[in-house]
C-alpha cells in the first residue's frame, strides 16, 4: 500500500527528467543571445525583453483583432481583407437591431440573431440556476464526513476534463431513437421519444448535458469555499445544540454567499458563450431551437454560402458588450469576496 503512493511521484520524476532534457538544451542555447541583449539594454531593460514575446502574441492575436473587429462591423460585402471592404457606417448594427417588438424574434429583420439571443437567454437561465443548485448540493455533501470523499469528488469532477465533443457524443449515443434511454422508456411501457426532433427536449438535453459536463468545476470552487469556513463556528453551534437546518441557514450559507456569487457570475460568463457541446449534440436543431449566439456568429461568418464577416463582427461586438457587463459584475463580486 505504501509503495503505491510513491509510484506517481516516481513516474512524475522520470517524466520530468525525460521531458526536461531537450528543454534544458534550449535554455542553454538561449543563454548567449540573452546575455548579449543584457549587455545592450542593461538590467533595467531586461523586464521588457522578458515580456516582449508574450506581449507580441497578445498584440497580434488579441489587441489588433479587437480593433479590427470594430472596423469590420462598420463595413459590408464579402471580402475578408479590410482594404477591399466597403464602409457602410452603422448599417450592420441597424440591420441586426431592426425589430418591431424586441420580445419576439419573428418580428425582427435578422430573426436568426434574435432567436439565438433568445435561446441563449433561456439556456443561461436554466443552465446557471440548476448548475449552481446542484454544485452547491454536491459541495455540501462532499464537505461532510463521508466515506470515500476523494473518490466521490473525482466522480463528479472528471467530466470537466472531457472534451466537449466527447461529452456530446457520449450523450448523443444515449439519446438516439434506438438509444439506451428509449430502450428504458419502452421497457417501462412508454413510447419512444425522439429527443432531437422536439424543440423542448433538445433544449432540455442541451441544458442537462452542459450541467453534467461543468458541474464538477463549480463544485470544486464551492467546496474550497466551504472548507475555508472556520470549524470552530460549527463546533460552537453544536455545543449550543443548534439544529442542522439552522446551522446551514445561519452559518454555512451566509459565509459561503460571496463564493456563491462568484460562481454564479462565472457560470453566466461561460453560459452566454455556450457552443461546443450543444453544437455537436444537436447541431443547433431542430430548426433553430438550440442555436445560440456564438453559433449564429460562427454560421454567419464561416459556414454560410456568403460569408458575412461584417454582420458576424457586429454580432460578436453585441456579445462582447454582454460579456463586458458580466465581467464587471465578476470583478465586483470577486473583490467583495476577497475583501469581505
Amino acid at each position: 500500500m505504501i509503495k503505491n503512493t510513491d509510484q506517481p511521484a516516481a513516474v512524475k520524476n522520470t517524466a520530468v527528467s525525460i521531458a526536461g532534457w531537450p528543454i534544458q538544451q534550449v535554455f542553454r542555447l538561449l543563454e548567449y543571445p540573452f546575455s548579449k541583449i543584457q549587455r545592450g539594454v542593461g538590467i533595467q531593460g531586461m523586464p521588457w525583453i522578458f515580456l516582449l514575446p508574450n506581449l507580441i502574441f497578445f498584440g497580434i492575436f488579441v489587441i489588433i483583432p479587437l480593433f479590427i473587429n470594430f472596423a469590420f462591423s462598420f463595413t459590408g460585402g464579402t471580402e475578408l481583407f479590410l482594404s477591399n471592404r466597403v464602409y457602410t457606417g452603422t448599417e450592420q448594427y441597424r440591420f441586426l437591431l431592426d425589430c418591431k417588438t424586441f420580445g419576439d424574434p419573428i418580428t425582427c429583420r435578422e430573426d436568426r440573431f434574435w432567436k439565438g439571443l433568445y435561446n441563449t437567454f433561456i439556456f443561461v437561465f436554466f443552465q446557471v440556476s440548476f448548475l449552481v443548485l446542484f454544485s452547491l448540493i454536491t459541495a455540501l455533501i462532499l464537505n461532510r464526513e463521508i466515506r470515500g470523499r476523494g473518490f466521490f469528488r473525482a466522480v463528479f469532477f472528471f467530466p470537466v476534463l472531457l472534451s466537449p465533443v466527447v461529452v456530446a457524443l457520449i450523450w448523443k449515443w444515449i439519446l438516439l431513437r434506438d438509444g439506451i434511454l428509449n430502450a428504458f422508456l419502452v421497457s417501462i411501457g412508454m413510447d419512444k421519444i425522439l429527443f432531437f426532433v422536439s424543440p423542448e427536449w433538445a433544449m432540455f438535453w442541451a441544458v442537462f448535458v452542459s450541467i453534467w459536463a461543468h458541474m464538477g468545476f463549480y463544485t470544486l470552487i464551492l467546496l474550497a469555499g466551504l472548507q475555508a469556513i472556520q470549524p470552530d463556528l460549527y463546533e460552537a453551534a453544536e455545543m449550543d445544540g443548534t439544529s442542522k437546518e439552522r446551522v446551514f441557514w445561519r452559518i454555512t450559507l451566509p459565509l459561503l454567499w460571496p463564493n456563491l456569487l462568484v460562481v454564479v457570475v462565472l457560470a453566466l460568463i461561460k453560459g452566454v458563450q455556450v457552443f461546443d457541446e450543444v453544437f455537436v449534440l444537436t447541431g443547433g436543431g431542430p430548426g433553430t431551437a438550440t442555436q445560440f449566439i456564438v453559433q449564429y456568429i460562427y454560421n454567419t461568418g464561416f459556414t454560410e454560402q456568403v460569408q458575412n464577416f461584417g454582420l458576424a463582427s457586429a454580432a460578436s461586438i453585441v456579445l462582447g458588450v454582454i460579456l463586458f457587463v458580466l465581467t464587471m459584475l465578476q470583478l465586483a463580486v470577486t473583490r467583495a469576496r476577497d475583501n469581505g
Partner: protein
Amino acid sequence: MADPGVETKNLVSIILARRGRKKWHWTDIFSYTYLALGIFLMFGPVLWLGMSSFKTRAGLLEFPPTFFPLGQIELQVEGYEKPLLLFDVKMDDGSTRQLAQIRRIGIVSQMVDPKNPGEKFKIPIDQRTKVREFRMAWENYRDPLERFNFLLFLKNSVVVTVVATLVTLLINSMAAYGLSIYEFRGRNAIMLFVIGTLMIPITVIMVPVYLVVTNLGMVNSLWAVILPGAATPTGVFLLRQYMLTIPKELIEAARMDNASEWTIFSKVVLPLAMPAIAVLAIFSVMWRWNEFLWPLIVLNRTEVYTLQVGLNAFQGELDVQWHYILAMTVVTLIPVALVFAFLQKFITTGIASSGMK
C-alpha cells in the same frame, strides 16, 4: 495495519458506522442516495460508451440493446465457403436444435445442421433465435486506424498539444518573470493589460483573428491553432502569483555572483516555480487537446483536422458509422483519463486555488 476486529464486524454495521455523532439525520440518507445516484449518472454514460464501443455494427443496431458486447456465433460448415450464422431453432416437434443458416428467403430461412451438413431445413424466421457469445469487436479500433485519417488526426492533435504547451510555458514564464522579479515603471499597467486580455474570449474576436491568421498565411496549417492561444493571460497570472513568493534574496545573491538575468531566470526561478509550471502545463495540455471551436474555424482540410474536429466531421456524415465513432471517442478520451488518474491532486488544487480552468 488493519484492526483485525474490523473484519469480524458485519457489513451493515461497517456501512452504518459513523464518525462522531451517533444518530442518523435525514441529511445522511439524502447524502448517500445522492452520491449513489451521482455515481450512476456520472459514470454510467462513460461505461455505456466503453461497452458500446466493443459492439459490432450489427450489435449496435439491436433494440433493445444488450449491456455486454455480444456477437452472433459464426460457424464454418463443410461444403460452404463462407462461415454461417448459428441459431437456436424451435422445431415443430417442440425440441430445440442449433442450426446454421445458409440463406434467408423472405420470412423463411434455409438452415443446415452443422454436425450433419447433409441435413437441411426450411424454418420460418420467427422460430429461430441468435446464438451469441461475449465478443469484443476490436476491429472498431483497428479499422479506423487503417482506413480513415484517424492516425493523422491523432498525430495532429499530439503536435498541436505538445508544441502549443511548450510555447505557452516558455513565453508565459518569461512574462511572469518580468512581472514578478523586477520593479519598473509601467509594471502595473502591463498587469492590468494582462488581466484585461483575460476577459476577451475567442468567441468575441473570432472573425478578426481569422483575418490575422489568413494574413499570416497560416489557414489550414497547425500553426493557426497553436499560435493564437499561446500567450495565455491565465498562465501569466498564475505563474506571476507564484513567482512573487520566491524570496528576493536568492535573486540578489545570484546577481552578486555575476549571473546573467537569463541564467537567474532559467537556473534559479524556473526550478523554484516548478509546481506552478506543472499546473499550467496540465491545464494547457487539456485546453489544447479538447479545443474545438477555433480549430473548427481555421482547419478546413481533412489533412490538418485535429481529433476533435475529425470526430465531429464523422458524426455529421449522412451514414453515421457509430461503431467507429464510439471507438474513436474512447481513444480521444484516454489521454485525458490518464492525466486525470495520475495528476488529479494537481488539477483540483490548481482549480480550487486559482478559480480557473
